[in-house]
């Protein structure tokens, strides 16, 4: 069993037009910048994939990573909790121009829907959102005298995930708060593609310290010194770099 792939290009080669793609991270923390940029590279080279539905907590920041993916026009719809950031201009302009769809989901509900997708729970009840616009049209049920909103699982065709250590079985650890949505998304996608800072041999990670067991992972690619969105944005980086 060897889930490692040798290049970012190879890692994202299977993502087709119209795919749903979970992208890990909370803002820049835990965002798989290199996997996203590899997907943009493919689009620049081939015109594909397009029409993506992206699931992420945010809507990108500046002109790199998720914001750059949106800026290319590859994203048809975004499912997120907080499409604001220090520099949200890319999403904001497309959204206000009616060129991208938005499904707004409370953050805890987003996390729980993804977990439910991974755990085979098609629906659950939450107090979150009851009596608000975000519960409109949703089934309400009372338990023990309190009203709850029924929410559905969320699954995706692909997950793009950033981890710290990974082995060839797909076992993963994360770095600090870069964990966030990443382990959940690993469980809820048909194909989970992970960039790790270092590929280690099976057994190198203490079985007690594995956060994502390999069963949830299909591909692991090494990106030894991953970029941070925050650092790129402070340097006013743009992806792809303007050619002329």
């Amino acid at each position, binding site marked *: 069993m060897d889930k490692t792939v040798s290049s970012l290009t190879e890692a994202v080669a299977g993502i087709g037009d119209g795919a749903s793609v979970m992208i890990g991270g*909370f*803002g*820049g*923390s*835990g965002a798989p910048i290199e996997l996203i940029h590899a997907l943009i590279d493919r689009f620049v080279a081939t015109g594909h994939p397009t029409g993506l539905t992206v699931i992420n*907590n945010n*809507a990108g920041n500046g002109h790199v990573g998720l914001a750059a993916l949106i800026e290319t026009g590859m994203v048809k719809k975004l499912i997120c*909790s*907080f*499409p*604001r*950031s*220090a520099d*949200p201009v890319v*999403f*904001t302009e497309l*959204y*206000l121009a009616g060129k991208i769809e*938005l499904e*707004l*989901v*409370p*953050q*805890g*509900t*987003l*996390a*729980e829907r*993804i*977990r439910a997708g991974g755990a085979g729970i098609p629906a659950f009840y*939450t*107090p*979150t*959102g*009851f*009596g*608000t*616009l*975000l519960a409109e049209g949703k089934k309400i049920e009372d338990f023990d005298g309190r009203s709850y909103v029924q929410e559905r699982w969320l699954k995706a065709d692909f997950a793009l995930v950033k981890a710290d250590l990974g082995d060839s079985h797909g076992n993963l650890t*994360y*770095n*600090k*708060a*870069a*964990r*966030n*949505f*990443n*382990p*959940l998304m690993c469980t809820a996608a048909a194909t989970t593609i992970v960039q790790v800072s270092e590929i280690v041999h099976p057994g190198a990670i203490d079985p007690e310290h594995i*956060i994502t067991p390999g069963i949830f992972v299909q591909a692991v690619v090494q990106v030894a010194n991953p970029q*941070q*969105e*925050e*650092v790129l944005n402070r340097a006013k980086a743009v992806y792809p770099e303007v050619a002329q």
Partner: protein
Amino acid sequence: MTHKLTNAQIAWRAAQDIQDGAYVNLGIGFPEMVAQYQPPGRQAIFHTENGILDFGESPAKGSEDWDLINAGKKAVTLNPGAAFFHHADSFAMVRGGHLDVAILGAYQVAQNGDLANWSTGPKGVPAVGGAMDLVHGAKRVAVITDHVTKDGKPKLLESCTLPLTGVGCVTRIYTSLAVIDIVEKCFMLKEKLPTLSLADLQAVTGARLFTNGPVADLIVPEL
């Protein structure tokens, strides 16, 4: 209006009600200030939605670790005993009633405890984040806010006109003029600035203020 508390003073007042060892979530922006004003000898444990319990102060400029941020995307540090966890576990803490207090900002609060703090209406890009989860999870949901809007309109109302964050969830409001509890769908005045008459306070409040005992003076230090 002549005198009112600064944001720092409102945050200070809210901080006085947080017990030692309490688990606390502070909304992003203004509520984050509350952490600075913990009374001596008390230490709350702060939770952030993105998966840290017991984070500490901001790091020195230039030594930020951008994998170590809070829900406001600001760099933080860790206290001894801190823990990392993923987003589903983080909101299990929230939704499961494990937080003692959540302190949030507000556009409007209604006398029945309804809170509106996520959307100013259909214009622009809507964004909700974790607020809707927090208001239904923490054992105590408090609001800190200026008593009125920037153009002087009441924020404490008979009912909210903006889209709700949660129904009947707020139990205490710390404003720039007063401390008000919500008791049986009424605003119950607990403290007010000593320089302010009850009538003046009522005049800038959009619903009737009740009392159920002496109203204490709202006294805060210069900050």
